[in-house]
C-alpha cells in the first residue's frame, strides 16, 4: 500500500482502474462456473449484483446506475438481451447508493450481507416483472420460478458478498485516503 502512494496521481488512477476492471472480469469468469459449495438448487450466487452493491455502497446514485448499466449490458451479452439485465442492476445500483449506509451504520459485514439479500430479491423481481410483460412464459410459472430463484440467489449472494466486498472496499478506501492526503 505504501508503494502506491509514491506513484504519480495519474499512474495511481490507472492502477485503480486496472484493479476495478480486473475484479469485474473475475466476477464474470466465475459467473458460468458452478463450483462445489456455491450452488443451491442449481443456482449460484449473483456475482455481478454483489459487485454492483459493493461499488455503489459508498458512491452516488449516478455512479451506481452507470455500473449497473455497464454490467447489465455485459450480462445481456452472456445470456440473452431479452429481458435485459440492465434494468435490475441499474436499479440495484441506485437503491444501494440511496441507502447511504455509511451515514447510519458503521459496521460493515452483516449490513452489506443484508443489503445484498434485499437487492437480490429486488433484482430478480424486476426480471420477473419483465418476463410477465414479454409474455412468452406462463405467468404462474414465472412467479413460482421467481420464488425459487429469488430466495436461493438472495441467500447465496448474501453469504458470498463479503468475498467481493471486503477486498474491494479496502482497496478503494486506501486509494481515497492517499488521494486526500496528497
Amino acid at each position: 500500500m505504501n508503494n502506491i502512494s509514491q506513484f504519480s496521481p495519474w499512474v495511481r488512477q490507472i492502477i485503480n482502474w486496472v484493479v476495478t476492471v480486473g475484479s469485474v472480469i473475475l466476477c464474470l469468469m466465475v459467473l458460468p462456473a458452478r463450483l462445489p459449495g456455491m450452488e443451491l438448487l442449481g443456482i449460484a450466487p449473483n456475482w455481478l449484483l454483489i459487485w454492483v452493491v459493493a461499488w455503489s455502497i459508498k458512491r452516488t446514485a449516478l455512479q451506481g446506475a452507470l455500473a449497473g448499466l455497464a454490467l447489465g449490458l455485459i450480462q445481456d451479452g452472456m445470456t440473452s438481451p431479452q429481458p435485459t439485465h440492465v434494468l435490475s442492476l441499474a436499479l440495484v445500483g441506485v437503491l444501494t447508493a440511496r441507502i447511504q449506509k455509511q451515514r447510519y451504520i458503521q459496521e460493515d459485514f452483516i449490513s452489506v450481507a443484508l443489503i445484498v439479500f434485499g437487492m437480490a430479491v429486488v433484482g430478480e423481481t424486476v426480471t420477473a416483472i419483465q418476463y410477465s410483460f414479454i409474455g412468452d412464459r406462463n405467468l404462474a410459472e414465472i412467479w413460482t420460478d421467481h420464488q425459487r430463484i429469488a430466495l436461493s440467489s438472495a441467500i447465496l449472494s448474501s453469504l458470498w458478498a463479503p468475498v467481493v466486498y471486503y477486498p474491494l472496499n479496502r482497496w478503494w478506501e486506501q486509494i481515497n485516503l492517499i488521494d486526500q492526503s496528497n
Partner: protein
Amino acid sequence: MFILRRWWDRNGVAIVLGGLTLSAAWLVRQSQGTALFEAYQLMTRPFQSGPTQEERLTDARVLELKQQLVELESQNQKLKELLDYGKTQKQQGIVAPVVGRSADHWWQQVTLGRGSQEGIKVGFVVMGPGGLVGRVISVTQNTSRVLLISDSTSKVGAVISRSRSMGFMRGQGSNRAVLQFFDKVPDVRRGDVVSTSPVSKLFPSGLPLGRVESVNLDKSPAPEAVIELTAPISYLEWVIVYPE
C-alpha cells in the same frame, strides 16, 4: 467559455472514463460475450478432466444392447432404402465437454468447451447420455452456448412413441417438461416413451426425450402431460453435438 472549461477540467476524466466503460460494455453485449467465454474456456482448461476409467468401462449389458441397436438401425436403414424413404446416413457427432452453466438464473443454458474450430455451428443438435439435451444458440472459436430443452422458451415438437399422438414440449427447469397435445383426446398413458416428432423443424425425428410421468386430460386449452426427461440435465459433463 471559461465556465465550460472549468467544468470540463473538473468532470472531464469522469465523463471520458464513464463513456469508455459503457462503450466497452456495449461491445461485449454486441459480441455476445465472445471474448469472455474464450477467456473462461482458457482459464478452466486445466480443470477439465477426461472421462475416468470407470466411465470407460461401461458394463457388458449396455454394450450388448448398443450392438443390438446398431444392428436394428442398419436393418431399419436398409428397409427405408428399399422403400425409397428419403433420409440421409447418420452423421458423425462432435464430443464436447460441458464447461459452464448459464450466466444467470432464469435461463437454462450450458457452455460447451468446443466451438467453431471443431466445426460446431448455430442450430446444431446436442445429445447427452439419455437423449436430446438442447440446441446450439451461439458459437465462438472454442466455446458454444446451448439452450437446453428444459428452458421454458425452448419448444420441441414431440410424439408419443407408442400411439404417435403429437404435441409440443415446453421445458420447466431442471428435469421436467410439459407436453401439450394437439389432439383433444390423445392416446397417452403413464410411462409412455416420448421422442422428437417427425414434423419438428429444429430437431431430427425420433430422438429420445423422456417418459410420461403424469397425464392431465382435462387441462384447457389442450390436454397436457408432464414428462420426465431421461437426459440428466443437471449433471451433464459430456455431450455429443450433431449437425442438423
